[in-house]
């Protein structure tokens, strides 16, 4: 492949590649994203290579390793084109059968298909409920692309938006299009991207930078990683277009250290793009020069904050800076620097290709386009899902996520990452967009969505996030460092039954002071988990503080496990499994838990056969004492 010097060159290359490819030729795509990789996707891929060869099919079948498809929980995922037959949980032992049945006999392997709640098997990927209700405009190409092969991206129309922008549009026109699309930042704040670009373009100074934020510090989120790993060119193309609009010739991609596969695939992508003249000097013969460096970040949560990230790129310790001048005007080395999130950049080529109007047709009044969420927690189908802005929480959780497993009740969903908030069931019909989430006291954040069922203690949830943030505060400014720490101490007291009503005052005061005085947004928003759980679940706080009771039966210090004498069948299972030997009893004798010895590990509850259900979690009440040791069971 030679350098491309015009839009025609790019189109010719695309046609050449297409001519080489037969759309009806079977292609086995094996998800090699991080999730599936952990399930052994490489072994599966190798097995396909070997089996296809031993069946003499190597000329007749293509094999493609792709990035994440989103349904990681069911990995390794294999999709066979052109029929789009989707196999779940594929292991290398399954491969010979897939090859002989599907590739040779053209039949499906039933046992590897998705099975819905009624036991119906579903063969086609697009009919699986998890996928059916999504709109995968950004993420969908992941499954069609080998991220290490730029040809795959180009066949799908990749870099056509770049050609259009550079060769047919002025920077001002590109800027206008993005502004009109009302694309808002996907990394947290939802700030309009076009307006930020404009600020950087208009800021004084010749040298300007554009930056991709791929720090992804939110522990539950991995969409940025999956995009970078699975479709790095889409992010790169967006970045180059942005640079053109802004008038920047240098870019940085800030990737956390812990994402080696993303860095690897990015490096390959950059190299291939340079080779084709899509990056570097005189891109596509347009006269526009632009190049990118990858910066590997230390991977702390706060490093994703804009001023901290830019300080790190300068080669100094990545701590937030106390400035009242925006990084868009004065960022890296005090030069205008435009920072956007991975997913934000990936939206740009689509907007240029299809026009702002197409984009604004998706979504709600204030939030356009789609958003990728990381759907996890107590929900049947977990993974990465992309939906149009404005889809209701109920649709995401029930239609895509398949609802709450084990017949439990939905309690709340936490959105927005560590400093987001919880949303209770009365808001299940809330359309998910930037503004609606903020209205109910949570936020979009980077798109984390953790579903919680009735067995979740909301004080414990707040404590979990505050504990995370206490460890992630950089420690520079006092209110964040000491305030979060004190907040954690309050929550620990509450969960351990050692708090008093005085603590209610601190629950109000600390967040107020932190919100007003912390240096960066980490500290300013750190108390959100407390504020939002207090807002909707104040009764749980009251139960913990006043009645020393944990209604969900989670906080160890406030619960007791107790064997209901009428239900105990003296089966000895709990007795044998208790790791500290806290259960008394014997054959035909009702079992009793010695509360002094019990460490509240919950093993007995887990092992007690469901048909007996003899173990009860008590909280806020005395443990009944009316069975004497050595009482025989009554079998009804």
């Amino acid at each position, binding site marked *: 492949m030679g350098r491309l010097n015009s839009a025609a060159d790019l189109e010719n290359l695309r046609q050449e590649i297409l001519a080489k490819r037969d759309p009806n030729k079977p292609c086995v795509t094996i998800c090699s994203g991080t999730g599936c990789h952990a399930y052994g996707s490489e072994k599966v891929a190798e097995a396909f290579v070997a089996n296809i060869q031993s069946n003499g099919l190597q000329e007749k079948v293509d094999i493609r390793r792709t990035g994440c498809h989103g349904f990681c929980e069911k990995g390794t995922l294999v999709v066979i084109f052109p029929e789009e037959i989707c196999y779940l949980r594929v292991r290398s032992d399954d491969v010979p059968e897939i090859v002989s049945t599907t590739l040779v006999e053209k039949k499906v392997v039933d046992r590897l298909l998705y099975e819905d709640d009624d036991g119906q098997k579903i063969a086609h990927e697009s009919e699986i409920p998890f996928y059916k209700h999504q709109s995968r405009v950004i993420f969908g190409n992941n499954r069609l692309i080998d991220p290490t092969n730029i040809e795959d991206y180009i066949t799908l129309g990749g870099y056509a938006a770049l050609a259009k922008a550079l060769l047919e549009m002025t920077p001002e026109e590109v800027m206008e299009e993005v502004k009109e699309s009302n694309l808002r930042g996907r990394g947290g704040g939802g700030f309009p991207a076009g307006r930020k670009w404009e600020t950087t373009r208009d800021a004084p100074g*010749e*040298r300007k930078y554009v930056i991709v934020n791929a720090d992804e510090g939110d522990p539950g989120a991995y969409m940025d990683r999956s995009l970078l790993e699975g479709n790095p060119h889409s992010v790169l193309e967006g970045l180059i277009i942005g640079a053109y609009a802004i008038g920047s010739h240098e870019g940085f991609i800030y990737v956390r250290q812990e994402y080696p596969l993303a860095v690897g695939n990015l490096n390959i992508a950059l190299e291939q793009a340079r080779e084709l003249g899509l990056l570097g000097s005189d891109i596509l013969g347009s006269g526009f020069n632009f190049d990118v460096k990858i910066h590997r970040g230390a991977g*702390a949560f706060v490093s994703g904050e804009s001023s901290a990230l830019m300080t790190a790129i*300068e*080669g100094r*310790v990545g701590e937030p800076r*106390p*400035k*009242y001048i925006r990084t868009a005007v004065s960022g890296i*080395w005090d030069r205008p620097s435009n920072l956007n999130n991975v997913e934000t950049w990936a939206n740009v080529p689509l907007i240029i290709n299809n026009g702002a109007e197409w984009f604004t047709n998706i979504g709600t009044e204030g939030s356009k386009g789609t958003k990728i969420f990381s759907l996890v927690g107590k929900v049947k189908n977990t993974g990465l899902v992309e939906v149009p802005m404005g889809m209701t929480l109920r649709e995401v959780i029930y239609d895509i996520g398949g609802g709450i497993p084990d017949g439990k009740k939905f309690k709340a969903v936490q959105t927005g990452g560590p400093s987001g908030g919880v949303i209770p069931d009365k808001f299940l019909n809330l359309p998910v967009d930037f503004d609606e989430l903020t209205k109910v006291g949570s936020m979009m954040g980077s798109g984390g969505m953790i579903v919680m069922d009735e067995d979740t203690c909301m004080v414990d949830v707040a404590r979990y996030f505050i504990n995370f943030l*206490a*460890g*992630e*505060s*950089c*420690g*520079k*400014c*006092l*209110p964040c*460092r*000491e*305030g*979060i*720490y*004190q907040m954690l*101490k309050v929550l620990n007291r509450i969960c351990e039954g050692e708090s008093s009503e005085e603590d209610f005052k*601190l629950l109000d*005061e*600390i967040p*107020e*002071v932190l919100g*007003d*005085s*912390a*240096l960066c947004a980490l500290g300013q928003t750190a108390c959100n988990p407390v504020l939002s759980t207090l807002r909707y679940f104040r009764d749980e706080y009251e139960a913990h503080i006043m009645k020393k009771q944990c209604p969900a039966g989670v906080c160890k210090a406030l619960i007791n496990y107790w064997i209901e004498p009428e239900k105990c069948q003296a089966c000895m299972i709990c007795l044998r499994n208790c790791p500290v030997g806290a259960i008394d009893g014997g054959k035909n004798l009702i079992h009793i838990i010695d509360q002094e010895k019990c460490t509240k590990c919950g093993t007995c509850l887990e092992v007690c056969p469901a048909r007996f259900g003899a173990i009860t979690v008590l909280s806020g009440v005395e443990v009944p004492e009316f069975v004497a040791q050595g009482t025989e069971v009554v079998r009804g």
Partner: protein
Amino acid sequence: MKPILIVEDEAIMRESLQDWLTDGGYQVESATQGDEALKAIEEQDYGLLILDLRLPGADGLEVLRKARAKQPQLNGIIITAYPSVQTAVEAMKEGVIDYLPKPFDLNDLEKLVSQTLGPVQVEIRPETVTCVIDDREVEVRQGATILEAAQSIGIDIPTLCHHEKLSPYGACRLCIVEIIRGQRSRLVTSCVYIVEDGLIVKTESEQVVKIRKMLLELMWARAPGVQPLVNYGMRYGISGLESKGNYELSGASETKFEVEPNFCILCGLCVRYCAEVKGKNAIGFIGRGTEREVMFFPEIASKECADCKECFAICPTGALPPHYALIEEGAST
């Protein structure tokens, strides 16, 4: 004054030169390669080129020669890690101002720069801005912080991490004030916030005082009884903070937060003093969150600190001697 262009492929050298000279008040741009430099010269006039001799693609002298085709009076300084008589002579013939073998003292370079371009004219901005602080009108130079403006009329805003000789840090947040623009008010740290014309500032509004009180109490939990906290405690009437004796007598705190002292409030004065005034970086921070602490770096501290210890005096809590003792112990074992 025309800007300086640094042409150097080695990133660390380039950025440090650029930072140094920018701090010196010069306008500085940089390029990594010869052709990039020539392009920049094409677009604008420079007062001085600082050129690395060995550059990818071209050498520094060649760049200078080509640049002079456009701008004949252009001055050049050559820097090189590979000095040789031959290149030195060649450079002198080309009429460069100097030929500096690396490593060189940045102060020497700055002297050369100032001889060539003339001293930096401290930009006298005649413009001033006017703001209203606590109902009093103040006129200050443009670029002044709220804190400076307040100090100029004798209003005392509490600070703990600010020092006029050191770069602003914004970490203790004690200097927080309320600013009002139109209908909206906002809280900002006055040691960092630059005054704009027409700004209205309240340095002791109800909310400001409430925040300061809690910040002081949070600090007290780490550094109970230290003098500046006692002083502020008295000023704001925070029970439990008015007297050092109280804490020392009872060993307990009557404040909101349990006392877990380490006597460092992480104001960063010592760290900035050592880096910015002494240029030694013998002390720095390690750790995150409440694990963060100051630490003398043994390799540097064992050489530099014995005769200096100036940071001890700048520390508001007197926390440094025990930290430094670790270095002395290390040296004696």
